[in-house]
């Protein structure tokens, strides 16, 4: 039942109940007072009649006089009793006698001048007036029902009219109340509905409303044979803004961004905030060119700097575009594909990208590969390759760098650049690193047994530097393999190191205290802070191979290599040149004072099983073998 109906029913019910009670009470009060008043009236009439009779010469019971009196005093239904001089009561003007019981009852009440007497199931009002001189008495009797009839006819109509007016008013009050209540409830419902379907911060539709609108647009497009576009976009490096300038600033930026997005789209397009810095835009009846134009407009609008609390900041967005029906006909499918496109846009840095099925199948493949990687790590299906690093002073092998390799049974060789980030993403990097360390140290010990005193370089993920239990686990592996910590060099890329240097510092110090060495890998390709670098327990810098390989083609590369070697030496580090592929490069870096070199000129990374053969046959290895130890 609706609220208005309930209010109406309640008020009408109360009103009618009140009317009935009021009517009944009014009736009884009126009846009581009317009886008393009628008895008084009867007494008044009786005294007047008696007075007229006593003055008149006409016989009191003359029908003409009685008729006249009854008409005069409206006593046509009253009974007139007359007590004669003998003291007998008898009726006047009415044929027949009244029952003796009624007469005697009135006679018995000689001390009263009037009242109510019941006789034969009916109540009578009576009033008596006496003439003291000639002992005449007149009694007027009237049935109570006469009074009741009069009251009912008069009061009934008034009550009916009043009730009508009151009920009419009650209906309006009920309508008024219900309209006020309905309006309030409606407002509240609207507010709640708005809250449930909109984002509090920006006031934009939220994910739920987006799904709803997307469904509607999809159905319309399906019916009319139109196409439409869905954008999923997020802001690049928004987390940095939040972290450095605070969440309040980030919130304000999101509000400004939402305004700019709204300014960039048409009236019938919809924007929604999906959460965080992620937005979605639905563009009904839009082809791919139109969608790209709109994406460009949004990125262009976001490019101009935002001025928030006197801080000028720029926001760059990556927009993924999915088209209906080309890239999907279902809502979920479109959202997923727009999401994939957004990551493609983010990776390419182009600002926007239309969903590309070829790249997405790669993503599906990537998911499958992630499953396979877990299996490969758990089932020991990965292998280690080792590339020698030569000491340029002695021309001996200084150490090997251990490199993880994955030969996928179906997809063949998988690059470390592909599976290492996967392992990091899946939280498998710790197990993978410990496995690599264990295998590498095992090989290191075997080399040592074979007479080669070699160090081992092992690449370390930045995730391991966040793990305070890592040094302890490394210690255990070192002990198990009976390898000295001084023989191990841990390599880490400068970008990874700089990402979260404060947290990594604790682990690095502990590793350093254990006697392990630290090398900065691919130096020159990332963003190193020399201020941090000098504080870290670094032993080696490894110059990225891109500089060494292109040294002949680009003079500036030579300058960079030379500078890095000098920088390393000046800071007290040893310097390794990666990517030495020919003798010319070797002599070049040697001439610049580089300490160590690594590259295909010496050897490609060798599988574990080929290591023995290479050590036996290679000229570099021959110089390295520790004869005395071998003999022992």
């Amino acid at each position: 039942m609706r609220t208005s109906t309930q209010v109406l029913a309640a008020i009408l019910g109360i009103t009618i109940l009140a009317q009935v009670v009021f009517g009944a009470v009014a009736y009884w009060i009126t009846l009581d007072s009317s009886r008393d008043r009628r008895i008084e009236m009867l007494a008044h009439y009786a005294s007047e009649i008696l007075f007229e009779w006593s003055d008149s010469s006409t016989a009191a019971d003359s029908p003409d006089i009685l008729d006249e009196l009854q008409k005069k005093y409206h006593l046509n239904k009253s009974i007139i009793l007359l007590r004669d001089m003998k003291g007998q009561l008898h009726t006047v003007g009415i044929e027949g006698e009244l029952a003796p019981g009624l007469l005697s009852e009135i006679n018995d009440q000689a001390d009263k001048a009037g009242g109510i007497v019941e006789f034969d199931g009916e109540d009578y009002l009576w009033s008596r007036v006496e003439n003291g001189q000639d002992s005449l008495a007149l009694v007027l009797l009237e049935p109570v029902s006469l009074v009741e009839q009069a009251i009912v006819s008069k009061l009934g109509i008034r009550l009916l009219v009043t009730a009508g007016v009151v009920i009419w008013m009650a209906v309006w009050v009920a309508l008024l109340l219900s309209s006020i209540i309905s309006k309030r409830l409606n407002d509240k419902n609207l507010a709640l509905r708005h809250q449930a379907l909109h984002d509090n911060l920006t006031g934009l539709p939220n994910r739920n409303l987006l799904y709803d609108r997307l469904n509607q647009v999809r159905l319309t497009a399906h019916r009319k044979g139109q196409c439409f576009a869905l954008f999923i976009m997020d802001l690049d490096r928004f987390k940095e803004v939040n972290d450095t300038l605070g969440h309040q600033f980030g919130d304000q930026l999101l509000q400004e961004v939402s305004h700019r997005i709204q300014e960039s789209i048409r009236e019938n397009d919809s924007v929604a905030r999906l959460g965080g810095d992620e937005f979605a835009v639905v563009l009904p009846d839009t082809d791919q060119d139109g969608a790209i134009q709109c994406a460009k407009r949004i990125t262009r609008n976001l490019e101009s700097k935002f001025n928030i609390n006197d801080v000028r900041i720029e926001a760059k967005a990556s927009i993924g575009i999915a088209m209906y029906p080309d890239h999907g006909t279902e809502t979920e499918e479109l959202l997923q594909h727009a999401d994939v496109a957004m990551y493609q846009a983010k990776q390419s840095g182009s600002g926007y990208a239309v969903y590309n099925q070829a790249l997405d199948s790669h993503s599906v493949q990537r998911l499958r590969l992630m499953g396979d990687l877990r299996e490969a790590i758990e089932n020991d299906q990965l292998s280690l390759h080792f590339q020698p690093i030569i000491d340029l002073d002695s021309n001996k092998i200084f150490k090997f760098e251990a490199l993880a390799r994955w030969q996928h049974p179906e997809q063949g060789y998988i690059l470390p650049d592909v599976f290492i980030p996967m392992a990091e993403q899946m939280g498998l990097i710790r197990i993978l690193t410990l496995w690599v360390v264990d295998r590498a140290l095992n090989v290191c010990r075997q080399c040592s047994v074979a007479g080669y005193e070699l160090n081992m370089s092992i690449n370390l993920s930045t995730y391991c530097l966040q793990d305070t239990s890592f040094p302890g686990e490394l210690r255990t592996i070192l002990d198990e393999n009976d390898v000295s910590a001084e023989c191990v060099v841990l390599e880490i890329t400068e970008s990874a190191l700089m990402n979260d240097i404060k947290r990594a510092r604790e682990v690095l110090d502990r590793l350093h205290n254990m006697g392990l060495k630290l090398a900065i890998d691919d130096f020159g390709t990332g963003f190193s802070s020399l201020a941090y670098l000098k504080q870290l327990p670094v032993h080696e810098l490894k110059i990225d191979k891109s500089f060494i390989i292109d040294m002949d083609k680009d003079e500036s590369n030579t300058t960079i290599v030379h500078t890095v070697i000098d920088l390393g030496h000046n800071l007290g580090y040893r310097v390794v040149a990666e990517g030495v592929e020919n003798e010319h490069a070797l002599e070049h870096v040697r001439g610049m004072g580089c300490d160590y070199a690594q590259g295909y000129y010496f050897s490609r990374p060798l599988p574990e099983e080929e290591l023995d053969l290479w050590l036996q046959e290679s000229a570099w290895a021959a110089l390295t073998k520790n004869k005395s130890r071998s003999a022992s």
Partner: protein
Amino acid sequence: MNVLKARNVGRLDQILRIGISIGLIYIGFIDRNLVGDSFSATVLGVVGVMNLMVALLRICPLYSMVGIDTCHTSHRE
């Protein structure tokens, strides 16, 4: 234009009101014996006059308070 906009009593509503008003005015002021009580007759007569005014102006204050509009409903649909 404003008066037209403020109108909230529709044509059918107006006709019904005029009919009822004529009846009430007749009972209240012309043939008072029909009711038999002068007070009641006067009340009914006054209600009839008020209702007639609403019907002729086609503006009902109670309708606007409650939000009823029998005038524009058909046009909206």
